[in-house]
């Protein structure tokens, strides 16, 4: 499915550009965005190196196990495929906690570590497993307690109360996350049925 979407976006883009006569813009977009992608990846190095270093200390000290132990029921319900006391649990919880606190740049390294563990659990295949998709669903709907960037933008435009969107945002993000988890379950059971046939 990704293959079709990917090719579709490009080819439709080219055709529309041909009709609209803005092929020059498309040419420029290809190369600036390729450059942007590389810049973005390099910008991630600093964050990844720092947080993965700190997290390794937390892991070796046993902090992740403590975290996993404290929230075991939640993880067990969300990720029934992960065996008891598996290191993936600790990383998933740190990823969720970092998202919750709005520490976006710490959440990504921990999420990636969790993905790494889940890939090992899945026999190293290059195919997404059930748990991987659940983790992704939770991350795309991103529960955040305090949307700091937005508050800052609202302040810069002289809002009377820049933080008054915290409550609706929390409500919307909670609904989105619950929705994501339920949709994820639905598609998982549907994929089981398909495989059964």
């Amino acid at each position, binding site marked *: 499915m990704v293959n079709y*979407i*990917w090719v579709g*976006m*490009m080819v439709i*883009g*080219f055709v*529309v*550009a041909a009709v609209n006569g*803005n092929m020059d813009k*498309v040419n420029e*977009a*290809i190369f600036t965005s*390729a450059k942007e*992608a*590389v810049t973005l*990846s390099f910008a*991630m*190095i600093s*964050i*990844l190196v720092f947080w*993965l*270093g700190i997290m*390794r*200390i937390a*892991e*070796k*000290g*046993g902090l992740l196990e403590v975290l996993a132990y404290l929230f075991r029921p939640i993880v067990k319900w969300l990720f029934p495929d992960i065996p008891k006391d598996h290191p993936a649990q600790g990383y998933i919880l740190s990823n969720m906690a970092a998202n919750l606190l709005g520490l976006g740049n710490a959440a*990504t390294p921990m999420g*990636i570590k969790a*993905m790494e563990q889940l*890939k090992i659990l899945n026999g190293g295949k*290059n*195919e997404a497993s059930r748990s*991987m998709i659940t983790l*992704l*669903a939770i991350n*795309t*709907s*991103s529960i955040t307690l*305090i*949307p700091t*960037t937005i*508050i800052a*933008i*609202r*302040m810069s*435009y002289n809002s009377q109360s*820049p933080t*008054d*969107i915290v409550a*609706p*945002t929390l409500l*919307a993000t909670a*609904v*989105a996350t619950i*929705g*994501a988890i339920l*949709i*994820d379950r639905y598609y998982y059971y549907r994929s089981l049925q398909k495989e059964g046939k």
Partner: protein
Amino acid sequence: MAFVQSFSIWFIPFLIGFILLYGTYKKVPTYETFVEGGKEGFSIAINIIPFLVGMLVAISVFRASGALDYVMMAMRPLFSLFHIPAEVVPLGLMRTISGTGALGMTSDLIATHGPDSFIGRLASTIQGSTDTTFYVLTVYFGAVGIKKMKYALKVGLLADLIGFLASIAAITLLFYS
């Protein structure tokens, strides 16, 4: 607000300090462990590059050609059928595709309509309630080399739609009822 800001400033040093002290207490060779763990960060970032280049190029071709504008135009009547304000429809679509693009649109909507208007509040909520699905998908799966995503994209996109509709419902419910 002062509390929120100082919370974010204090929390990260507190967290790092706590991890470092706990590691020391557990007799972990902290500095060596930090270096060893950090090494991985480089290769992960390099792994992400081809995935991100592929995805961002496709998205920007789609945007720059004007195809995205047509999709938005085509979807407008559908949204107005459900009384969804036309101003935020492009933002809802952009939110799933590009984080920086959406942030630009949100600032623009806030600037045009005012931060405390219906549209201004709605844009703020939409921006804050979900993350950029395409980006999260690309980075997380790219970092560990997952090529078959299965139903992941469908789940992410549907969750975005729910977040978008929930934002409208939340703003209407909390401020305008």
